[in-house]
């Protein structure tokens, strides 16, 4: 009977199958999740911090060196928005297509406080953050929806906000004409504030992902039931990430309003702002720290180049990039590299 035994033993087969299972779990969960966390090299983290440092330092000297302040302002804004959106989409698995609701709330909070009630600037900005947090609490019940249901309701809420804001009495919120800041223009100050917001967002995300808390968020995203069983307070963590994402967007809205010195329902609640944040983060790779930052920087540059020459083509190109990336790199650039070679797991996160 011995010769009837085939070469492949059962043990070999089961080993190969379990190998396949790790592969599939790597597909559903994020490559930075628990088993690979320890494998991220210390050097990679340092290199990343240095790179981020260089980015923000060059941001700091830009106003002295060039006259394209606007480009840099918006680049940092998109970094902050993409990172903030990733906090919701990549970390807890909710894709808020109405992310702009927080952006617009922040803009309006600052506008009303600073312009209508003549509050000091810092009150306007802090107020924006608080209003953002408040609105996110108001929308928190929608977190019980999943998948595209959540995305669609989120988008509807953003449009409801847009309509409601334009219905507010015009002596309070400017009506459909919006609010124009009459105070003196200080673009450099707002610019530096934006750099700080973006930097804090990126650093917070980096620390979060490399810490135990990031692991918890990922566990919650990948399998809420298991997370609950091992004793994680799923809804509290989820809510914390949700509020964090909202505050980042509200601060961006506040600063953008100040920077452009005009706020109106159409511009401040433009759904394209949500869409761009989603797209930039998705192109870089949801659930990674580096992806949204790289996506926002890269796309801002492309946007600047295409926009300045072909304004209509810009939207078309943006659309085409989104379509192609979702088809060929569904996990974004960083996600695709992580999937391609495990080597990158030590270097990308």
């Amino acid at each position, binding site marked *: *009977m011995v010769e*009837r035994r085939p070469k492949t033993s*059962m043990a070999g087969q089961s080993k*190969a199958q379990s190998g396949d299972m790790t592969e599939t779990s790597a597909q559903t969960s994020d490559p930075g999740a628990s088993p690979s966390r320890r494998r991220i090299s210390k050097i990679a983290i340092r290199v990343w911090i240095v790179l981020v440092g260089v980015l923000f330092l060059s941001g700091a000297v830009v106003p002295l060196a060039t006259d394209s302040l606007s480009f840099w302002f918006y680049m940092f804004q998109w970094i902050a928005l993409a990172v903030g959106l990733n906090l919701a989409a990549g970390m807890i698995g909710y894709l808020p297509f109405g992310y702009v609701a927080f952006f617009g709330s922040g803009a309006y909070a600052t506008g009303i406080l600073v312009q209508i009630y003549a509050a000091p600037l810092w009150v306007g900005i802090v107020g924006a953050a608080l209003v953002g947090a408040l609105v996110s609490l108001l929308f928190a019940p929608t977190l019980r929806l999943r998948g595209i249901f959540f995305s669609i309701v989120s988008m509807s809420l953003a449009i409801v906000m847009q309509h409601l804001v334009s219905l507010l009495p015009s002596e309070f919120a400017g009506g459909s004409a919006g609010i124009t800041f009459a105070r003196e223009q200080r673009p450099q100050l707002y610019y530096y504030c934006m750099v700080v917001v973006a930097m804090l967002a990126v650093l917070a995300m980096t620390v979060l992902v490399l810490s135990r808390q990031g692991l918890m968020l990922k566990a919650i995203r990948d399998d809420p039931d298991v997370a609950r069983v091992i004793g994680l307070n799923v809804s509290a963590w989820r809510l914390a990430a949700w509020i964090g994402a909202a505050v980042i967007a509200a601060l961006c809205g506040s600063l953008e309003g100040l920077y452009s010195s005009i706020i109106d329902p159409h511009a401040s609640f433009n759904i394209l702002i949500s869409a761009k944040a989603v797209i930039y983060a998705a192109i870089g790779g949801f659930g990674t720290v580096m992806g949204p930052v790289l996506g926002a920087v890269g796309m801002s540059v492309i946007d600047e180049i295409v926009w300045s020459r072909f304004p209509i083509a810009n939207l078309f190109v943006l659309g085409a990039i989104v379509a192609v990336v979702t088809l060929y790199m569904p996990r974004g650039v960083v996600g695709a590299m992580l999937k391609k070679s495990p080597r990158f797991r030590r270097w990308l996160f």
Partner: protein
Amino acid sequence: MSGVTPARHALRQDAVSSPAVIGELRGVSAAYFGDIHVLQGLDLTFNAGRVAGIIGPNGAGKSTVLKTFFGLLRPLEGDVLLNGQSVARTPSHAMAAMGVAYLPQGRSLFLDLTVEDNLLLGCWPIRSHRRAVRSAVQRALDIFPSLHDARRQSAGSLSGGQRRFLELARALLLEPKLLLLDEPTAMIAPRFAAEVYAMIRSIANEGVAVVLVDQNIRPCVEVSDHIYVLELGRKTAEGTAQDLQTDDALRDVIAGWLEVRGG
């Protein structure tokens, strides 16, 4: 090894009579992912009017044989023949029209559609001939009176045994030449199982080549004309069903599996 002829030895049955060969696997190797070969150089022949039983332990590749024949899995090596023509590259959806009916393991019904609609979809290849469709569905309902009574109910409301009859009825609608059955009596009540085996026998007696993959060795051997024994993707033994009718012979085969599994 009493009674079971190893594959490399001469086949007793073929010496006696040779009914028309309907389906054939020639040196077929297949794999689900990359390097794990589920089938390794398999040669099988399915004859008209005969039930070919395929038995073997879990993971032997029994269901894979059917999937490969039906085109759900592309063979890496070897060829799959239907009436002498290669069908190794034929997509699954074209198999029904070529006279191959396949009953996958478990559920192959559309549970939210009515019994009648399930039968109707079984007529897909002849859908443009409305009269033929209607008479085929009617014939199936006549053969299975219990389905006739339930024809306006959803398939999901049927019992396990009834569902299996509906699957069989649907598989037989287009009068296939080759019927591939994967565990047709799994998860159904014993009295239905006996009926299913009786039906398999009579289907074969009509001239259909039946391939029966079954975990229940005893009834499978009883209903089959020819038995193939598969272990880890290889054919380790084959022979006429009569050779396996004795308890000793069966015990011998099963002892072989235990050894493989244990070692």
